């Protein structure tokens, strides 16, 4: 064998072994586990084919988690991306207190989600939380924001948008600063309005960034559930149960590992589908330089 070949293989070996052992291998094992029953006490797992999938698909909580996650994603992703873009456009111009403003936008990114959750938990507290105090000024009564199924999920969405927008802003800001200034000058000479310039020049040039941000936002919508664990535990009445939270609950609260494995496979399939969709649809509209 060529010297370079085995040298290269030696160099990649540790990384590839670790990567496969804790990403691909568990993913494969999860799929296999989903075809067996959960071991209970001395009862060994038995092969059950796709029975676990059938019971998952008959489980109303699963469908609710899926619906919740869909609503959560559809609300969180566009809101955080649009706010991020607005923030980036704002701090990319000469603005009084620009550095301070940029810092304000970015700070939530540095906080652990669990710290964020604690702070917001306080905000949402009935009667003396900030939200109810503000509501009281307007003569509105007491709200149990997290205890009411109608407001609990929106409350989670607000927290997620607040946490993520500043992070995405950074990527837009980087892209904006890399744009050649003569483009704006040329547009100004031709008398193009700012709105027109934004729509015709800036946004198309930002498409690669938007794709990158969207991929991250989609992954986060399914991955980041720390605030759910701390703030609502999926409640009330499963109103804030997201898919990964349901996996956590099934696997590590009820210790039903087979069902948790099945749910994980469904989540992975969903993520794969979304990835294919994003790259298929969006990649065609992206102008790479």
């Amino acid at each position, binding site marked *: 064998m060529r010297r370079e070949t085995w040298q290269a293989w030696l160099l990649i070996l540790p990384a590839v072994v670790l990567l496969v052992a804790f990403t691909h291998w568990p993913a494969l094992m999860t799929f296999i586990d989903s075809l067996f029953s959960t071991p209970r006490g001395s009862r060994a797992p038995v092969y059950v084919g796709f029975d676990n999938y059938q019971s998952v698909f008959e489980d109303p909580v699963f469908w609710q988690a899926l619906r919740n996650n869909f609503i959560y994603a559809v609300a969180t992703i566009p809101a955080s991306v649009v706010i991020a873009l607005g923030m980036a456009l704002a*701090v990319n111009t000469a603005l009084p207190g620009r550095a301070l403003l940029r810092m304000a936008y970015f700070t939530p990114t540095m906080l652990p989600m669990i710290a964020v959750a604690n702070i917001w938990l306080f905000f949402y507290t009935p009667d003396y939380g900030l939200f109810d105090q503000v509501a009281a000024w307007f003569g509105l009564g007491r709200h149990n924001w997290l205890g009411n199924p109608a407001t609990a999920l929106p409350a989670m969405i607000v927290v997620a948008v607040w946490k993520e927008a500043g992070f995405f802003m950074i990527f837009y800001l980087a892209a904006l600063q890399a744009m050649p200034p003569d483009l704006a000058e040329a547009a100004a000479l031709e008398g193009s309005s700012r709105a027109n310039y934004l729509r015709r020049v800036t946004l198309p040039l930002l498409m690669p960034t938007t794709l990158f941000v969207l991929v991250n936002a989609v992954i986060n919508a399914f991955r980041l559930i720390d605030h759910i664990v701390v703030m609502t535990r999926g409640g009330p009445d499963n109103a804030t149960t997201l898919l990964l939270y349901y996996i956590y609950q099934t696997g590590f609260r009820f210790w039903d590992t087979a069902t948790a494995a099945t749910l994980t496979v469904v989540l992975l399939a969903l993520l794969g589908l979304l990835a294919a969709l994003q790259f298929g649809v969006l990649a065609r509209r992206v102008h790479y330089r």
Partner: protein
Amino acid sequence: MSTRSLEIAGAWLLGVLWVLPLLYAFWTAFHPAAYATHFDITAPLTLRNFRTAWQAAPFARYFLNTTLLVTLILVAQFVICTPAAFAFARMTFPGRDIIFAIVLLQLMVMPDVLLVGNYRIMAQLHIVDTILAIALPYLGSAFGIFLLRQTFRMVPQELDDAARLEGSTLLGRLWRVYVPLARPTYIAYGLVSVSYHWNNFLWPLVITNSVTTRPLTVGLSVFASTDQGIDWSIITAATLMTSAPLLVAFLLFQRQFVQSFMRAGIK
């Protein structure tokens, strides 16, 4: 001009909204509990909430655990991902593109989602409830390999050739030519990695169950959910305490942080 001032006002309103939760947390943490929910500029400042929180839970141990965890992950990621990134960037070998594609799959299927599978593996290895078990799934990092590979590919080939002519070995060239030139990428990757793992919660929550292994985030959640009742002043103090090192580092090195996150995101 009025649309412009409207825009500025809007930007600032958003900024105020974005720091408000943090300011509110500071207010609560540094004042006696009686002032937690109403504002009074004359309210006395106090550090008692911090002292109470510090004494009520083993936060010193949690700090140690998180520091160990973050250091272990950072060092191991650098040592493991550097040679792999170099091989993918500058060497030709059969199977390179397929293996690289397999590596990149991790960007979509992240260890955070594979709680059940990874827990089982850790149980089989008998390392449940260890700091090593928290770190292991993140050591072979596709993100790190990808980032370093992109950087190594930009190193001028002439520098590599010159070192080769001087008789440098493969590892010698990697160490003396590539690693020094990739310094900004290492800083960027390091900052992203440290802040990610300082803040990581779900996997550590699942895999740890004792004081000697729990990182700060899990310790904080245990502290906040047990008998603290509704003493928000103390919970908020604990919350700020756990975020403080990262927050202070961010305020001090704001420019580097922002640039690092940008660098890590540009492909």
